[in-house]
């Protein structure tokens, strides 16, 4: 239930002015299969960054 993820947010507080992840987003963060793909992607991104940074 989406409301479970936002029930601790109070109106008119700084916390109410941002986006809160719901269930699917949270699930994907620790979904092993998806995260294995992201692991490879992050390593590729960082490798490109390192190569671009050496002068």
């Amino acid at each position: 239930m989406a409301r479970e993820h936002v029930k601790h947010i109070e109106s008119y507080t700084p916390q109410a002015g941002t986006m809160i992840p719901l269930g699917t987003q949270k699930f994907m963060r620790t979904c092993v299969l998806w995260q294995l793909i992201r692991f490879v992607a992050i390593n590729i991104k960082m490798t490109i960054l390192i190569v671009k940074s050496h002068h």
Partner: protein
Amino acid sequence: MARLVILGAGVAGHTAASFAAKWLGKKHEVVVVTPNSKWNWIPSNIWVGVGEMNKKDVTFDLAPIYKKAKVDYRQAKAVSINPEGSESKSKAFVTVEYTGQGKEGTSEEIEYDYLINATGPKLNFGATPGLGEGTTMGEHTVSVCTADHAVHAAHVLDEKIAKMKNGEEQTFLIGTGHGMCTCQGAAFEYIFNIEHKLRNEGVRDKAKMIWISNESFLGDFGMGGMHIKMGGYVASSKIFAESIYAERGLEWIIGAHVNKVEAGKVTYETLDGETGEQEFDFAMLIPPFAGVGMKAYGKDGSDITDVVFAANGMMKVDADYTPKDYRDWRASDWPRTLQNPTYKNIFAAGIAFAPPHPISKPMKSKNGTPITPTPPRTGMPSAMMGKAVTQSIVDMMNGKTSEPTHTACMSEMGAACVASAGKGLFSGTAAAMTVFPVVPDFEKYPGTGRDINGTTGEIGLAAHWVKHLLHHAFLWKAKLKPGWALIPE
């Protein structure tokens, strides 16, 4: 045979020493001067600070590593530099005071042909009354700046968790302890690792968790924030950061200069000029950094510290130090070769070099108190600087050139930052961020100042795995184990 002296054996200094020993071989001499007997992988101190790692997991003895690399290791602190020598010595030298090796308290003058200043920072606890005295942490707060500090923090945290298990409510205050701090990332990691631990211990509902920071907005990180591609938008790191804090139920006080720490209470001033008090049961406040306080003397013994060092004690290099308004800052203000402009055989790397100005927009409270994060230059940029200055010096020592051959400019290099938000093989998460370049270049990248394809961020388990991988990879590299030089900075 020429001699390279490296002051400091942190990320920048140890990287420089490792590559210098490898590239110079027996042709020249490499001397490392550091007051510490152990190397510390500082990014993992936050896991020590929540009891998920031990001190021995993040440290190792330097002496056997340098013996293996044939580096002359002196456990001593650098006190002063004589870049022109002295009336009795024709050659440049550094004066050091031993802190170990059975020679504690004795001084020695070590001559050099080339010098790398990679001393890192002085942890300036004394800048905030009550936060500590000089470089010594006070009794009201904890720290994760060193492995020993982190061990102490973990013990205090365990006491608080025990209280919460007995039904007591506790307030946690984590962040920066002064208006001119850097290293918000370490505090960011620590508050989320504590939050994760409290959930695992089943006491999260007993904890009020508050972030206090000198950033003018969450997600500034001392880099003026960054813009990340997300869901078809380019969004500010402010949204990214606020979302994580709100999701985990953390409150935040930003644009804050902590001006006093007492037992269980801090007082602070914010950018809008208001003052406030925040009570706490557990507080980890990062101290501001300063130069280590080295002096410099001319041949006649005159004090030339202001020629070699900036007012904050950091070493002057090839940056443009002309005071400028924020709107006139340019990427080209930032140093490229990290060579001292007066003494061409002296270089600085890592936190030890004096930045030309902050990266974040300078701000003052209505009362005139400066509240501006200072530029981060730890981790990957530090290591890249250490390697680049060593490459230049090796080329100069081998007679290939008289000018630096390599650069490591923060407005031309990127940085990868993996900020842990909780440890666990399948339950852990971290924020993996890449930023390119570290210092925004608004001429090259109009709008956000950075390459939006190279500036990314995501949170998840994969980032935690990357953080773990980096922990082991960099310890392997620092211990100079087989293939160490293949592991990138």
